[in-house]
């Protein structure tokens, strides 16, 4: 590609990024506005700058906001591991192994994606209540250990089916069991799918409001999305500025997580996989 066309490409990208990110710039601007300005100044630029939203957001609750980061990170971290392991295992069965009922199970698995989840909140609560899991983090983590996130199972199935069969066929001829093939062939090749799963598991858990709201009761156990909602009691005390400030701050860990993992995504399997 020539120098000129590279420059043009960069300019276009920068322009698109600018438009795409404008709402975030606006939010940053607003997080620096004083409370008396935030409702009635719609422009991006504050009339007077103040850092107080960040200070207030961080420490105005009885628990410093960092605690919510920690809680969210713990739950999100556990979810990443649980989803990666359980969904990969299930996906391998669907993508590579032949067994009776596979098609039916696969259709059921896709079907579990289709029911609007709001009608499941109450029955699920009843179920977890019967298990004695209320007031514990179990409802947030155990389902992920059991591959209930069909999204990721399906995702990994699609990736595995994109991997040529030569390698596992060859291993099979050499007498390798499905377990060995899983461990030595599929696991290394499934890296893009695993990284993608890790990224989404982390980010969606980081943003999930309703489940965490229902199963967490103690302020010191609250996670970031639940805590962010504490700033806006729409009928009463509303601290919009601190909410903007903490929303932006809470983007930082997920952004860094993404930045780190997307690197692994693009390092890719081209070199490690097919020749290995």
């Amino acid at each position, binding site marked *: 590609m020539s120098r000129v066309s590279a420059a043009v490409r960069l300019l276009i990208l920068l322009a698109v990024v600018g438009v795409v990110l404008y709402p975030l710039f606006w939010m940053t601007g607003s997080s620096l506005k004083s*409370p008396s300005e935030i409702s009635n100044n719609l422009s991006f630029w504050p009339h007077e700058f103040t850092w107080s939203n960040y200070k207030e957001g961080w420490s105005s609750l009885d628990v410093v906001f960092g605690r919510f980061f920690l809680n969210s990170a713990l739950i999100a971290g556990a979810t990443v591991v649980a989803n990666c392991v359980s969904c990969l295992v299930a996906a391998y069965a669907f993508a590579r192994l032949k067994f009776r009922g596979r098609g039916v199970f696969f259709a*059921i698995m896709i079907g579990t994606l289709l*029911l609007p989840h709001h009608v499941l909140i109450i029955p699920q609560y*009843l179920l977890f209540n019967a298990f004695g899991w209320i007031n514990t983090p179990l409802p947030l983590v155990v389902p992920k250990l059991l591959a209930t996130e069909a999204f990721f199972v399906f995702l990994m199935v699609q990736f595995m089916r994109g991997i040529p069969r030569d390698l596992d066929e060859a291993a099979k001829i050499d007498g390798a069991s499905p377990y060995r093939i899983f461990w030595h062939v599929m696991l290394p090749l499934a890296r893009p799918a695993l990284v993608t799963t890790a990224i989404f598991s982390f980010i969606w858990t980081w943003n999930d409001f309703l489940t965490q709201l*229902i199963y967490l009761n103690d302020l010191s156990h609250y996670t970031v999305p639940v805590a962010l909602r504490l700033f806006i009691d729409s009928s009463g005390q509303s601290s919009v500025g601190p909410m903007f400030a903490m929303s932006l701050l809470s983007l930082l860990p997920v952004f860094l997580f993404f930045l780190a993992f997307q690197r692994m995504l693009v390092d890719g399997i081209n070199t490690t996989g097919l020749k290995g």
Partner: protein
Amino acid sequence: MPNTAPLAPGGSPLDHVTASRRTLLRGLGAAALLGSAGVSLAACGDDKPSADPNAPVELSIFWWGGDARAKSTDAALALYTKAHPNVTFKKTWQANAGYYDKLATLTAGGNAPDIFQIDDGALSEYAERHQTLDLSAYKDSKKIDVSKFPPSLVQYGVVDGAFAGVPTGENTPGMIYDETAITALGLAVPTTGMSWEDLITWAEQVTTKSGGKLYGTMDPSADYKALWIWLRQQGKQLYDGKKLGCTADDVAKWFDLWKGARDRKAAPPADIIHTANAGDVTKQLVVTGKAATSFLWANQVTELAKATKNKLGVVAYPGDPSAQWARAAMYLSIYKGTKHADTAADVINFLVNSPDVGKLWGTDRGLSANTDVRAAVVPGLSDANAKASSDFETQLASKFGTAPAVPPKGHVKVRSLLITYAENVQYAKATSAAAADQFVNEANAAIAG
């Protein structure tokens, strides 16, 4: 792509028939089992009479609010624990978003907190479905002492003859105006007792004098409080038992009143009204600088004042103020399935009657329901706006009319229907008559159902 990965899953559309009969039966069995568990939990009643009064008790308590309310509630509950060291609290609080979703889920699971905060939109929903404990016996034995409460306020906590919620405080709808902006235009500020027509005429002047930059008044046609007061001024009611206390004609007149105001530019166009209709404090036109007045609860002036540099004032909703009544800002209720009803009742009694709690809470949960506590609290209020709204409520209280019953179940739906159909008229998607007709039909269905 979802922002939250699906909570959990359903069944296959393709295969739910084949999803083995045994699974289905097992599911049904579990459902029945869980169901009966819910019932038996809900059925276990009061403290055992033989229970040791000093045995350790942990009460769960759940409320919505901001962090200021959290701090003052923590402090109040600490006072109780200090006096009764055997009683401790498991406190859960959050903002109002999602509060009723969570409360309903816990209640359906037989796990509701012993004490919970509730408002007049939800009280009947819970009380009519027998999820709140009837506190009449505690009221009669003065274990929950409401003798210093305005009688109409107590009445406003009674659903189907059961005392379902103890009002924590009193609140009144108030029209909040931007004194700075109005004075700058050389106009007089609105006053309590001015008629709706007066308001609209005055508002038209505001719009004209400001060159269209500031509309005179918010259009409150989607505000059930405004409709209710206006109806009472016409000798009607919003509710009459399990049906509306007004006809489609009445509602159409109400919509027409405001259509006139919009046509005269006294009120802003529909999209601006819409931003405020959801009721969020920070989006009210009086603080976003779009209109000179907003229709809210009087005590919200404190929070509104934080969002603007201008000086705000509060007067009654227009028309004869005797159409107003003492309303409960919110209640504390006890879950029917609590194991510690006596203790919970004693805690509520302490929270609503202790002058110390009154000082801690100020007007955060409304003007104290106990008038003695109120008299002790109001002079000590430091915030000028809180003081102004308290003074306003106290003055208005002398003019209050008789209280209607608590809104029936379905009230929340009626509130949102009113917004939908008022907006239909505001956006000129329907005539006043057609919208009013649909509103009345659907509202009646919602209350009856």
